């Protein structure tokens, strides 16, 4: 950092911990460093479709309708574009017992 100088030990830790941390406020986001991909989202369990990339990219969050998946149909505030499981596609998730393993089995449904 050029304009701030870490003074105490905690500041050094904050500095180290946020290196490569791209904040959405930046006008021209730097390219994220190559590294492991950490999914984050509002779900505590693994749920495909909720990933944001390390740079905090929002394309993976739940806003874009094409990413709505699985978790969106239970208890989410998001008016999800997922199949209507009550009426139209009751068996939509029946092949998906454990999302970590079986998420590929959840197919698209065309009304």
């Amino acid at each position, binding site marked *: *950092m*050029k*304009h*701030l*100088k*870490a*003074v*105490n*030990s*905690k*500041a050094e*830790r*904050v*500095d180290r911990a*946020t290196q490569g*941390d791209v*904040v*959405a*406020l*930046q*006008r021209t986001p730097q390219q994220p460093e190559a590294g492991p991909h950490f999914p984050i989202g509002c779900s505590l369990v693994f749920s495909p479709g909720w990933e944001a990339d390390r740079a905090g990219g929002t394309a993976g969050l739940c806003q874009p309708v094409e990413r709505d998946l699985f978790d969106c149909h239970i208890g989410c505030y998001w008016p999800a574009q997922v199949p209507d499981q009550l009426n139209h596609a009751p068996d939509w998730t029946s092949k998906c017992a454990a999302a970590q393993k079986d998420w590929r089995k959840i197919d698209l449904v065309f009304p």
Partner: protein
Amino acid sequence: MITLGAREHHRFEAAGKPFVYLVPSAAIFALDDAADAILRTLSERPRTREELVAELSARHDHAELDDTISELARVRAIGEFVAPERESAPPPKIFPLAPIESIPPFPLTTMVLNVTNQCNLSCTYCYEYSEDKIVDTENGKQPKFMSEATARQSVEFMLKESGDNKVAHITFFGGETLLNFPVLQKTIAYARQRGAEVGKDVDFSLTTNGTLLKPEIIEFLAENRVGVTISIDGPREVQDKFRVFHNGTGSYDVVAPKIRELLKRHRSRPIGARVTLTSGPLDIKRIYRHLTEEIGFWEVGFAPVTTSPGRGHAISEDGYDDMLAQFRDLAFEFLEYSVENRHHGFSNVKETLEEIHKGMSKAFPCGAGLGLMGVATDGDVALCHRFAGSDAHKLGTVADGIDRNVQFAFLEKHHIANKTDCSTCWARPLCAGGCYHEAHTRYGETSRPNLHYCDWIRGWTDVCLQIYGELSEKNPGFLAQFDEPMAAERVS
């Protein structure tokens, strides 16, 4: 369009330069002109990025401002402005979500053994015996002296509860600790032996009023490297005001020569004085000079008396201001000495500097009920020594161990996230609401933040931040001593 706002912080100046203390991370950054300008502008009110850049572009070019905004945002000194009503959610508690049984117990660092609840002095302001006492030590259920058997059980309890810690700290306390010197002596021998057997170092310390020191005791303390803290309030006229024997005579003339003897013989550990500050004209510098230069203490720590409001010895609001001004003077004297790498014994400032250096951000004001516990004469384990013997603050017994449910309920209730009053205070990473015992005495409830001394805490934290900033510029080497792990908590 993003609106930027300053996040919670405290700006201060030291050595003519601006610094920022960030809350809740407790990180400190030195700011250059651009960073300072941005932070100050956003502290007035939030602005859009464009507004901010336009406002400051006369003095700083765009690229510089862009860079600085990114850096400030990166360390969370500024960020997207969140309207206050959305911010009012309580700060997240970093607290186990798992069931109690599955959480390994937090290791005990310090056990305070109240080897007796009797005292040969009757200091007017004493939290243990005077009007504000919690436990009836005269006719209560506890024995007046801890037995050797209970002390041994306590040692076993400590060794077990210290978990993987390599060092266990045992502090002897009272009453007047030395009234039960025989048990103290035997406990040290026993703990040494048991510590060696289980592969732990045991560190000993005690607090005493000094009246019972005599050559054999001094010899024993020196040989066994027992850390000693003496409760003493200052020169004769100050000491004798409240620190009196049962018949009302002052204790200065009894303790002063004994303390001098102790300081002469006991060189294996630095010996400190612990001063209770009370109402009336305070001359902290004079007390400090007397105790260090005239008596010879290595260091002196001051604490305002714990009392319910309205007592004769309670410090008034003006008294707190006066105390802060004097603390400030002494702290800047500490700074002068430290810049030249000379020792200065004002221990309050040193303790706070260490916490600032490490960037401690506390969920709890102190280790009570967590890494520190107090044991009453009958073996009941309480939050800390000040609550020893109180059934309402009991966590278990040395024989049966700690009741984890009680301990967790206590911790849940006393977490900083529950202290709404503290949620807007920048000093909360260091204060976290203050002493449970003080709150209990003042408000009858341990979970209440100590609102009567907020201004004093903020003032004092600000002074210590300035000292820290000055040292980081003038003698950063001095601060390196605080890179060591934290020493055991001080007991008073």
